[in-house]
């Protein structure tokens, strides 16, 4: 591949920053707190974020809430289909530790045993403001040259 000039790298990072497309696959209650961002209240489209229907168009996978053993297979399948660079956000305490499902027989406890996670957003579930903070943090990192996976 042709080596890019620093300026081209910078403008590519900027282009990525303002066109984060999110795969429309959400697992649990974290999505309820993400919904205000879809509507006009928080309005994610002003950051260039879109919800897309297929993983092949997506840059971001949001793991929103607890993940069952059955769902983790689908998440892995979706993650593998996403083109690089791709970023993963985990919403809420469930993907981190199992949350209130820490002793459930059917949910996985740590999602990063299965897919790499770039940003953890705290809360049970996180407020829309927390999610916005996490997204903006991710955007800063991408703008600063973070390449994802």
């Amino acid at each position, binding site marked *: 591949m042709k080596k890019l000039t620093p300026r081209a790298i910078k403008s590519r990072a900027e282009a990525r920053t303002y066109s984060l497309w999110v795969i429309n696959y959400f697992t649990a209650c974290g999505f309820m707190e993400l919904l205000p961002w879809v509507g006009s209240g928080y309005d994610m489209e002003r950051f260039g974020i879109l919800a897309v229907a297929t993983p092949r168009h997506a840059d971001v996978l949001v793991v929103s809430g607890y993940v069952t*053993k059955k769902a983790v*297979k689908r998440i892995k399948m979706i993650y593998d289909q996403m083109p690089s660079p791709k970023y993963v956000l985990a919403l809420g305490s469930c993907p981190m530790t199992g949350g209130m499902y*820490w*002793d*459930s*027989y*059917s949910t996985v*406890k*740590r999602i990063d*045993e299965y897919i790499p996670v770039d940003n953890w957003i705290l809360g049970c579930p996180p407020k829309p403001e927390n999610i916005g903070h996490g997204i903006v943090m991710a955007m800063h990192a991408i703008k600063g040259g973070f390449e994802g996976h």
Partner: protein
Amino acid sequence: MANEIVSTLKSEFAEAILSCASEDGRILLQVAGQGFHQLLSRLKDMGFDHCSDVTLVDYINDGEFEVIYHLWSHGRKIRAVVKVRIPRESPTIASIVDLWKGAQIHEREGHELFGVVFDGNPDLSPLFLEDWEELPPFRKDFDIREYVKREYYGEDKGYFGQE
């Protein structure tokens, strides 16, 4: 009206009905395993046209499962609950799919989570669980805590839960 239904059933199924209770709009019947299918069929003829749920309870100290049928009559506005006890060892009970088709999915779920075989149900394949090789998880002798420790908090995982 509920009392009339119960007295009719009592005269027709004297041996099958172990105990019963009724009040306005509600009927509760405890039924022996042999006669329950005929009784449910009779209830359907009496206007109980909707089977809302089939649930199970594990009475491990008695060595029995209790299968609970929740019926509803749209015409009479009466809810009927029919309870049947079956032995815990190799639990098998006749399916009621021939009476209410909607019971199929409830029986399939009961089979998955309790391991009860509903004889005559056309499809008892797993519904929620994939690759499940343990005891059915809703049984009382399935140790959830032990399973979770072994499956998720194993020694190679490197976080709390280790001792």
